[in-house]
């Protein structure tokens, strides 16, 4: 038995050591910087909380995350439903449509949107040519651009779990509800929706948490008009060398993410992970 434990330790050991040295320790060292301000151990958090600018940044981060999540839920619905009904070639095609963006760099996709949303870009020209608008709209360097870009990146994270939930619904349940005299709306509200809920909740949580920490897309599409927490952290490090503020911001971001994860894991029937036996 002792030998078996030794083998297991040898298998897990290398990854655990590397993870500790390159992940846990650096995070710990960074977070410890948050408490090193000469004005007192919690002074940096005070600075973050008191400044109207920083509060605005946090609020904006939150608003963007909520909007991205809400819009992703809305847009994911028809795709997940159609995916769950399709078969054969069409199914494969639609599934690749969802999976393909996963494989393309977020940077490349964001760059693509910069080209499309530009003041003189194809979308503005199309809008003007069709007479929807007189002058070009400001689609870039504000929250509109950020929303479009982030939804584009995060939508598959919403579609896949929702599809997973829908495809597992036994169609006979719907027929049974039908047979018991329930109308379309009743069947949806009382049978279909509750059964979709685990996937919906899992996807929405994932999208929300990812949006909170998003960096590339808001940095490029939002610019200085739509600053998010992650951009603030980067600017503390790069522009101001304010490590203790960066550390406090990072700690706050991670704490929010972890608290939300713990809450949703407790409150919502999210799918248990990949490692369930």
């Amino acid at each position: 038995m002792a030998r078996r434990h030794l083998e297991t330790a040898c298998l897990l050991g290398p990854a655990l050591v590397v993870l500790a040295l390159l992940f846990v320790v650096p995070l710990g060292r960074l977070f410890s910087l948050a408490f090193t301000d000469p004005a007192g151990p919690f002074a940096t958090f005070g600075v973050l909380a008191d400044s109207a600018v920083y509060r605005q940044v946090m609020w904006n981060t939150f608003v963007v995350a909520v909007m991205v999540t809400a819009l992703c839920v809305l847009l994911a619905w028809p795709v997940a439903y159609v995916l769950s009904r399709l078969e054969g070639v069409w199914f494969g095609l639609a599934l690749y449509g969802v999976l393909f963006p996963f494989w393309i760099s977020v940077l490349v996709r964001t760059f693509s949107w910069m080209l499309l949303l530009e003041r003189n870009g194809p979308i503005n020209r199309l809008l003007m040519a069709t007479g929807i608008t007189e002058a070009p709209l400001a689609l870039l360097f504000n929250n509109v651009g950020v929303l479009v870009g982030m939804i584009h990146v995060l939508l598959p994270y919403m579609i896949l779990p929702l599809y997973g939930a829908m495809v597992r619904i036994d169609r006979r349940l719907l027929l049974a509800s039908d047979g018991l005299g329930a109308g379309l709306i009743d069947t949806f509200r009382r049978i279909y929706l509750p059964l979709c809920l685990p996937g919906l909740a899992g996807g929405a949580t994932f999208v929300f948490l990812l949006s909170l920490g998003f960096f590339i897309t808001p940095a490029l599409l939002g610019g200085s008009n739509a600053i998010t927490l992650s951009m603030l952290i980067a600017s503390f490090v790069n522009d101001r060398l304010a490590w203790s503020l960066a550390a406090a911001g990072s700690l706050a971001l991670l704490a929010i993410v972890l608290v939300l994860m713990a809450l949703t894991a407790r409150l919502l029937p999210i799918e248990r992970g990949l490692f369930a036996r």
Partner: protein
Amino acid sequence: MNRLPLVLRISANAGASLVLAFLVLPILAVVPASFNKASFIYLPPRAWSGVWYERFLADPEWRTSLVNSVEVATLATIIAVALGTLAAIGLRRIDGRWRTLVTGLFLAPMIVPVIVTAVALYRSALDVGLSGTILGMSLGHAILALPFVVINVGIALRAVDDNWLRAAAGLGAGPWRIFRTVTLPNITPGIVGGAIFAFITSFDEVIIAVFMAGYASKTLPVKIWESIRLEFTPVIAVAATVMIALAIVLFALAQIFSRKTGSPSR
């Protein structure tokens, strides 16, 4: 719901088609952009040319960044695959609380916002002199890629029956031989899938790379990131197209391998 009214069915299909178009088509906009003749990007191009591809290949900075990216991604993949495969096998041998805890730790790099990981790594890299090195970036990327390998190999391992291992032991094989002759052949597709995922994760990664890159160790995404902030030249679109092409190749490879995994079903 089996007989959704026609109106709803049509609108569901139309909605799904529009959303799918929204997901796929914008990505492809960089491809025509890279064939602009002008020195600025105009979509669709008024005149076509491959001149920016020549520029991309002729410019030592772009060329170096591509080479750096390949180096970083290769190194990160090797590290992540080696550690992740062992870890996934080890995970199967522990139970209960420990298993949950260790699994959580292995997946943590997926959960912690990358900006936080990047800043933390950058700070420590500055202290130990790894900042600005290829190795520093590779190690950072290996951490991000590790969960993908652990997951992929973990899934492949679930198809390995404990009784195969017992049978091999009963026939006289030692642990290493059992691993080599029974476990490994059955999880190879999972390892390859994890490796492809690890490679693309590193190759595409921007945030850690932006923090860690030195003047001589910029990766392709870092070079793109910096160029976007200077000016929109079609060279960026060329670089982006190169990244898309690589992603498509790797995606196709992964599909082929996942199909192979599917075949030995009983």
